[in-house]
């Protein structure tokens, strides 16, 4: 569908990412996923495209501008690479650079951001704890002040990029119960009292790492606090908006991949004496997948427009983003399932993009705010 918001630069950037995915990722995605790792070089190559610099000043290696359409284009095209672990392996930084940039002090930003944005080092965001991820206001990791330091105790889990990141944005409790007692810290991987272990044997996203992080009297300089004390919850919530748009756009790319694979297979495979694409049941599956793709694409464009407008003072479309998140994962679930049916037994074998996409539906439906929590947030936004 023609996008009413298209510009020459947006088209060109999407084209760059699409070509990059085609040439630099797709041919290797299967192998990387089986190996459980992507080469670090890929972080730097994607960094060189400018993909990590949205909303970051040029002084820190960023683009010096933001554009939600381009962010979405990046995630959608990455979604088409057929292995969600690839963008995830690089994606810790996408969700952690904004708090560093918006809330960190000058020295810290100069020290951390240029390397992270260029892909030379990694960064992660650590909110979820072994005790729970949905109820962010109730997180248990503690931080107490000790002279010029903060001392952290507790643990985080499911942290994407956690094993490899040099810098981790950590939410910890500095005040009383609930959402008014949470602060954000930048914890460097070599801080005393910090350790980590990998989460193994996951359903999907094999070539990305997720870690459990331990803070055992972990000392960080007081200057590593990001933003004001006890004001971290709102920063975490704000940060979720762009993360969720990225996930929604990635779902769209995954859906398009499912459709493309389904069509290719249905044209080539014959059953009952004719190509599958000539059977009405299969044609209807294609129609249903395609209609969901059109609808999600239109919604993504509308939300991107609204997010760009929010830079000019409009409200962030929080309710729409929340609804889009579960709408997208449900649509993806449908498309991945139908694509599996069209592929039949061939789809059940490892090493094809549809099988992997089907397994990776759930991380999209749970990570970054689960479907249940997204519905709850949407209804709260309705004042109910």
């Amino acid at each position, binding site marked *: 569908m023609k996008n009413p918001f298209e510009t*020459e*630069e947006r*088209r*060109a*950037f999407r*084209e*760059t990412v699409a*070509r*990059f995915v*085609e040439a630099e990722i797709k041919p290797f995605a299967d192998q990387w996923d089986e190996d459980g790792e992507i080469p670090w070089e890929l972080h730097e190559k994607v960094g*060189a*495209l*400018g*993909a990590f*610099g949205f909303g970051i000043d040029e002084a820190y290696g960023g*683009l010096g*501008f933001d554009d939600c359409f*381009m962010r979405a284009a990046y995630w959608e095209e990455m979604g088409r690479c057929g292995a969600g672990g690839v963008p995830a392996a690089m994606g810790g930084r996408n969700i952690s650079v904004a708090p560093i940039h918006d809330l960190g002090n000058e020295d810290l930003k100069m020290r951390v951001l240029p390397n992270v944005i260029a892909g030379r080092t990694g960064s992660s965001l650590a909110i979820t704890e072994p005790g729970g991820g949905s109820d962010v206001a109730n997180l248990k990791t503690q931080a107490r002040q000790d002279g010029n330091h903060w001392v952290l105790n507790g643990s985080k889990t499911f942290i994407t990029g956690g094993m490899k990141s040099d810098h981790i944005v950590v939410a910890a409790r500095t005040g009383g119960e609930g959402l008014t007692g949470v602060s954000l810290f930048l914890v460097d991987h070599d801080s005393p009292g910090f350790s980590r272990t990998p989460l193994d044997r996951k359903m999907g996203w094999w070539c990305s790492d997720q870690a459990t992080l331990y803070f055992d009297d972990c000392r960080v300089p007081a200057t590593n606090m990001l933003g004001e004390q006890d004001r971290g919850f709102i920063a975490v919530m704000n940060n979720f908006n762009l993360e969720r748009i990225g996930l929604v756009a990635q779902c769209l790319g995954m859906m398009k991949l499912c459709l493309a694979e389904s069509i290719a297979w249905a044209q080539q495979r014959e059953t009952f004496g004719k190509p599958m694409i000539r059977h009405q049941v299969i044609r209807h599956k294609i129609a249903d997948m395609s209609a969901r793709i059109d609808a999600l694409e239109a919604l993504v464009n509308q939300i991107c427009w609204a997010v760009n407008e929010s830079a000019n003072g409009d409200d962030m479309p929080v309710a729409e983003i929340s609804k889009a998140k579960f709408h997208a994962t449900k649509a993806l679930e449908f498309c991945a399932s139908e694509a599996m049916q069209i592929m039949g037994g061939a789809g059940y074998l490892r090493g094809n993009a549809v099988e992997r996409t089907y397994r990776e539906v759930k991380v999209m439906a749970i990570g970054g705010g689960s479907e249940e929590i997204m519905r709850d947030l949407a209804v709260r936004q309705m004042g109910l």
Partner: protein
Amino acid sequence: MKLLVAVKRVVDYNVKVRVKSDGTGVETANVKMSMNPFDEIGIEEAVRLKEAGTATEVIAISLGVQQCQETIRTALAMGADRGIHVLTDDVLEPLAVAKLMKAIVDKESPDMVILGKQAIDDDANQTGQMLAALLGWPQGTFASKLTANGDSLEVVREVDGGLETIKISLPAVITTDLRLNEPRYASLPNIMKAKKKPIDQMAPADLGVDVTPRLETVSVVEPEKREGGVKVETVAELIDKLQNEAKVI
């Protein structure tokens, strides 16, 4: 050193080309178009020469419909300094392109013109050679390595038997082969910078060139569908098939 690089807008190399139902040509409506891959190599080589301090200016030229501007923008995002667009909806044959390019060379006086060895749409492999002839310049075609030494160029050419190294004087015409380099991706900061780079637009008439086609396309047909292969059991069967079915022996 000033470099002119030709960039042609062609059907994207990933697209499965289809013949128009009336047999007059190849379907280009609603088909993804991109820069001719050999021209990307040309731009990459020019930008590398600029980065190395050998070249001072890189000018990207495209000839054809309005959307050729997108192709020029891509070249600008890869690092070219400015663009020239000769706007026409007419079909341009290699000779017309070579004449238009010559007219631009006369205006711009570059030290080198780089073109692809061929465009992947009609695979003519003529334009660079025709341009060199019209200009009376030396040519280094099918270049797989280029070294500039003052006012001469060493060109390694891909020829049937292997590689041939020639030395030619500047100004010269170069056509690129596949292995000359690996073109870069246009990064987002460079895409944004490209927006501000100038593109001059002109018509063939402004350059005093008559682009009327001299060739007539009689028909365009799809290649015959290939039949699936068969396995033969014996040598005798193979010989029988070669004799009686394929009729090659």
